[in-house]
């Protein structure tokens, strides 16, 4: 496979995952905003902050109103991480590697892009929001389904999955980062229903609200949430789960190509560290430090994958 194609596949998957994550975060914040009396400015602010685009936002908009934020996150072309920008880039990458995709995978991508372009052509108001967000998330699910159901599970598949899980790990880490102060053991003392709703937003934006309730019998304590989002081995968006998948896919590639890779060593190390950390009492982990290190490790891993496989 061409190194450039590997790169296109990896980034196509990253962009798609990112746009799905943004849609989920908006969905959760919207749910939060609609369940209270003010506009829920703080939630909107935290989505923009966790996506790293606060500066661009402040340059263009005066207030963190719902309309400003959703338009910025969904359709602003000046925001390289808006859903519209990401979908265009994902499709561009997809077009570059059409020969590596089955017709069904390509169709799901192209159709999502067509739907997205049409839905985001004019400013979005809150009335259309649920349908648009559902559309984005469904498009992503369709893509995943086509991928699993029709593609050969070979190196092409592995590069796509690597992109997905590197991006997903990054997303979960950043969500935890923006809200880590609410996950600290001391947060419990502050308590109150207000903080509970914060944890709910966090879980909802990772599609994990129901599974958390199911596993933890609805006991919404901050350490339980932190443990779940970081260490849970079954939750497909926990940091632990994402790295397990990164490791799997790198092992696959290593077997497929018959070589050993530096990135595989890194992924193994991260997984081992997570297992060790989990064994400790979560109360003694310095959450702030833990998160900062993981953001750095994740981007280092992404770069190493690119070097190992000539992704250029």
């Amino acid at each position, binding site marked *: 496979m061409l190194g450039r194609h590997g790169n296109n596949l990896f980034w196509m998957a990253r962009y798609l995952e990112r746009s799905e994550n943004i849609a989920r975060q908006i969905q959760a914040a919207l749910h939060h905003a609609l369940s209270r009396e003010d506009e829920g400015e703080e939630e909107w602010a935290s989505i923009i902050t966790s996506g790293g685009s606060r500066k661009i936002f402040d340059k263009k908009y005066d207030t963190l109103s719902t309309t400003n934020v959703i338009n910025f996150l969904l359709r602003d072309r000046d925001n390289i991480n808006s859903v519209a920008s990401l979908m265009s880039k994902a499709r561009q990458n997809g077009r570059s590697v059409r*020969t590596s995709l089955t017709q069904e995978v390509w169709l799901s991508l192209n159709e999502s892009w067509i739907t997205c372009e049409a839905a985001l052509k004019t400013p979005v108001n809150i009335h259309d929001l649920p349908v648009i967000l559902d559309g984005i998330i469904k498009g992503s699910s369709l893509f995943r389904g086509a991928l699993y159901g029709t593609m050969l599970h070979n190196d092409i598949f592995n590069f796509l999955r690597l992109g997905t899980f590197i991006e997903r790990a990054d997303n979960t880490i950043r969500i935890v980062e923006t809200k880590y102060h609410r996950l600290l053991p001391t947060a419990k003392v502050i308590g109150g229903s207000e903080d509970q709703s914060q944890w709910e937003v966090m879980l909802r934006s990772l599609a994990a609200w129901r599974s958390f309730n199911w596993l933890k019998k609805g006991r919404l304590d901050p350490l339980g949430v932190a443990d779940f989002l970081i260490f849970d081995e079954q939750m497909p968006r926990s940091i632990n789960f994402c790295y397990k998948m990164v490791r799997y896919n790198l092992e696959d590639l290593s077997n497929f190509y018959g070589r050993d890779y530096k990135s595989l060593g890194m992924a193994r190390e991260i997984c081992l560290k997570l297992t060790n950390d989990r064994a400790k009492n979560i109360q003694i982990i310095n959450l702030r430090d833990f998160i900062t290190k993981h953001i750095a490790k994740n981007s280092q891993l992404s770069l190493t994958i690119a070097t190992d496989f000539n992704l250029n």
Partner: protein
Amino acid sequence: MFDEMLCDHSHEGRKPYEKLVSWLGEQDLNKLMEKSVMAEDLFRHVGITFNVYGDKEAEERLIPFDLIPRILSADEWRILERGIIQRVAAINAFLNDIYNGQQIIKAGVIPADLIYKNKAFLPQMCGFTPPGSVYTHVVGVDIVRTGPNDFFVLEDNARVPSGVSYMLENRSTMQHMFPELFTSHQIKPISNYPKDLYNSLALCAQTKIDDPNIVVLTPGIYNSAYYEHSFLADEMGVELVQGSDLEICDGRVMIRTTTGTETVDVIYRRIDDDFLDPLSFDSKSLLGTPGLFDAYRNGNVILANAPGTGIADDKAIYSYIPEIIKFYMGEKALLNNIPTWRCAEAENLSYVLDHLHELVVKEVHGSGGYGMLVGPAASKRELAAFTKKLKANPGKYVAQPTLALSTVPILTKHGLAPRHVDLRPFVLVSPDTIKVTPGGLTRVALKKGSLVVNSSQGGGTKDTWVIGS
């Protein structure tokens, strides 16, 4: 004006169209229009689009697809097929001669200046014969028709002809929309084209290697024909590469892969000569691969088509094709050329200037229908402006009579309406055989009365059937 479907523009179908005309009679116009919208959706979702340079607003466009097929009988096709094979064989012999020996110039058949002063002539190719003496692995011969038995070659596309993906996609769209028509008609299949292309390219390399590594070389996703490049690579099961994926190592062409590099044996290149290799051709080009041409001349890679084939499809050379066929094949050309006035010659120029309002004038080195004057459709001001251009630079132009091109009906809101068409059959050349895929791409001018069929100028396409035995 000759309509290919209906006898003298009546309601009665010509022979090859009899079944189709009676089928059409049973169809509800609204239902057909719905199918037309469905077909458009299909093209958009599959992403069968083309890019228009400098058109930011609509970066990718659809080529309008008309549902009414164009039909040729097996007898009509035999005439075309024989003529095309003869013509393409002569073109390859001509290229081999032009770059090795120049007998045709020595014999005084073609003026030396026309070759040596031609921009399409590549001196770098002199003294080199590509494997199997194949220069034009893929050719698209544009054909127009004026009557039941009157076919003319409009031009030969011997460089990087495009459009074959539309031929194939049009067919599969029609099969999807109207399966019943395919059971009632005996239509010659075309779906083997990608496999034929692969085999034809592999055959050229097989003097050296049994299982050659073939790639398609594209300028990238912003090229107008990118869809076609990816389609062909996909259908052939080969890599779709860009210049930046290639490097030359010890004189061999390599592609950069996820595990290192891999040798390439055949490059089906969909980029122009100028962009192949900045060392041998356009030094400013960023698209090419330095050293590619040396690897080619050393026999380490096959380029399809060979560089320098443009000298055979140049509009100035076009008018000599009957002589070229006579010279190399010892036969009279089976397919006619359109009479052509070379404006470089003084007496031709004065004739052209006097009859400008009834002629089509084309740039010798132009393509895509750009920079062309259609006399009968031009305003006085346009004619005057073109007269100036002609006088200033007569060598740049050739002129042809405006032919009464045949029509085939298209589907409109108000029912069927005749529109002018041309035909581009696709030809594959390997060392021992020349193969023409039955039918080809029919391009149709969608505007009433228009003679310009180019997709870049608002033309559409039709599925093209060769039926019967």
